[in-house]
């Protein structure tokens, strides 16, 4: 069984630009989560999808972040416009059971 995949593995953009991160969950997993780790800080929850519906987006930092999960399969996280403080590693996780979350390798975002 393939694991959670994320694309790209690394993205470098300038402040003010737009970046879209993609996550492909494990097949059959209805639950999909986004997390972020800013350098030196702990991993923080951003939001949770159940199929295509946002179950909880309490961790989204502001309205520059937009997450979608069309058709309940893969998900995208768009940052527009990017700011310097958005730099960090963005993790995606999925699970069949909400109590089990399998993480992807992460996307390292650098905003210059």
């Amino acid at each position: 069984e393939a694991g959670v995949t994320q694309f790209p593995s690394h993205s470098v953009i300038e402040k003010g630009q737009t970046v879209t991160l993609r996550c492909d969950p494990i097949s059959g997993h209805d639950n999909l989560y986004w997390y972020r780790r800013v350098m030196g800080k702990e991993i923080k929850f951003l939001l949770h999808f159940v199929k295509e519906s946002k179950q909880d987006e309490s961790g989204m930092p502001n309205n520059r972040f937009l997450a979608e999960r069309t058709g309940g399969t893969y998900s995208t996280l768009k940052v527009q416009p990017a700011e310097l403080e958005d730099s960090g590693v963005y993790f995606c996780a999925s699970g069949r059971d909400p109590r089990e979350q399998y993480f992807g390798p992460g996307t390292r975002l650098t905003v210059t």
Partner: protein
Amino acid sequence: AQSVTQPDIHITVSEGASLELRCNYSYGATPYLFWYVQSPGQGLQLLLKYFSGDTLVQGIKGFEAEFKRSQSSFNLRKPSVHWSDAAEYFCAVGGRKYSGGGADGLTFGKGTHLIIQP
């Protein structure tokens, strides 16, 4: 609000020695508890989890953890570490937020870097 404290940022252990990584949590009820490991260039791998029942939990790679309600702790242990155990370890807590008992978003500690000396 729930929180997780991993008091040790770095721990250095000799290969073959025993290991204990500390984790304390703050939560109003019995939470779901997890330990994840991240090796360089890899994603987070689930080592073990506790939901209920036996408070001593066995995981992968020879790790175990013990839930102690009275101390609000969930420390990770391994009797003999191998050089391949060098990684960053994260303790996490999930709340029983929904009627279905789902953990929803996890709250993580800041992580502990494990360094193995030959």
